[in-house]
């Protein structure tokens, strides 16, 4: 088993954990964390597979992941701003159609 496989398969596992969280966790903050986990899984696969080169690792996936990390923080901040606004307006922290007075 090569070390790129460890990180590639680990990335696949973390991506699927993110998928599970996105689908199964009702709290919106959990969904934002899950989206981040999915991103990290993709990054692990990208850089893991870039480590198949003999000698130095492939720099192109590294540059792409660097770009991806910055875009992810922008996504997280925007997502959280929407979540907070949603909470201010509705008093809810989930997308369930519960009566709002139960939460306020």
């Amino acid at each position: 088993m090569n070390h790129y496989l460890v990180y590639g398969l680990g990335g696949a596992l973390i991506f699927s954990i993110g998928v599970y969280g996105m689908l199964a966790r009702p709290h919106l903050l959990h969904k934002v964390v899950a989206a981040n986990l999915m991103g990290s899984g993709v990054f692990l696969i990208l850089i893991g597979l870039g480590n198949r080169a003999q000698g130095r690792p492939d720099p192109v996936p590294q540059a792409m992941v660097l770009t991806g990390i910055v875009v992810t923080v922008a996504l997280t901040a925007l997502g959280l701003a929407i979540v907070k606004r949603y909470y201010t307006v509705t008093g809810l922290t989930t997308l369930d159609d519960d009566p709002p007075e139960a939460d306020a």
Partner: protein
Amino acid sequence: MMLVFDIMLMAVIVWIALGSLSPRGVYKSVVMFVVFGLFMALGWVRLGAPDVALAEAAIGAGVTGVILLDAAGHLRQRTPGPIPERHVRRGVAPLPLLASVIVFFVLALLVVNLPAEADGLAPLMTAGAEDSGIKNVVTAVLLDFRGYDTLLEIAVLMLATVAVFSLRDAPDILGRRLAGFAGPLLGSFTRIVTPFMLLIAGHLVWIGSSEPGGAFQAGAVLGAAGILLALSGFASPRWAGRRVVRLSLTVGLLVFIAIALYPLFLGGTLLQYPDETRKTLILAMETWLTLSIGASLVSLFIASASPGPDGGIA
């Protein structure tokens, strides 16, 4: 031997990832997610990606952690105590589990079936980087070979900042004081540590062309310094008016576009820097990008941060 370490590290990362989705409370999730980012940074070092490790530790764990913590606090303002019971689904939901297991096996199959050795673009990029005089190949890829990606990324970052600004509750973020933690210890700690953070940011830009570092890592450190200042109760200085903030948010993108267009006047194509000025142009670009990335990260945090108990107006 190192393989054992890799497997253990990956196991810990997966375990922390599971913990960060724990239904036992949002704060626990956020803290676990910060820890997740730090262990990921360790993984990046093992994968020979120190540039990514720097960015992950500063942005992935640091900035993301801070905005998540702030959001967790905000969502609790009106509903103190743990998450309401009906929002907590204990046990395993069967359908999402099935979906994620299928996703895992498809991805795992793809990863395993790829050839075990592939040089990818590494030789090409290394050779190209030697020609361009940028010894750090990752920086060369980011700002030279794949300049389009980075240009559009900066645009995405700026658009996200504008969007967060337009979603904020408070009318104006300038001169706002955040929730006051400013004890004597934090105050003097911030005073001591901020100049060093600025120094490190400058150092990271400067060495970025030959060693791990560059505009993103430096921007992250700059942004972290700004967020630390804001959290320690230092209000933004008087000269940092609306115009200065907007200018520092956009200057990176504007300089980048100007430098991208410059080769057109020399008869080249977009982003095709002339060889003799390549290094100077990239360094100039990186310097302004650092300022804009730092300003964006601070703005992404402050624009949506919850105001202090006094309404937050300094």
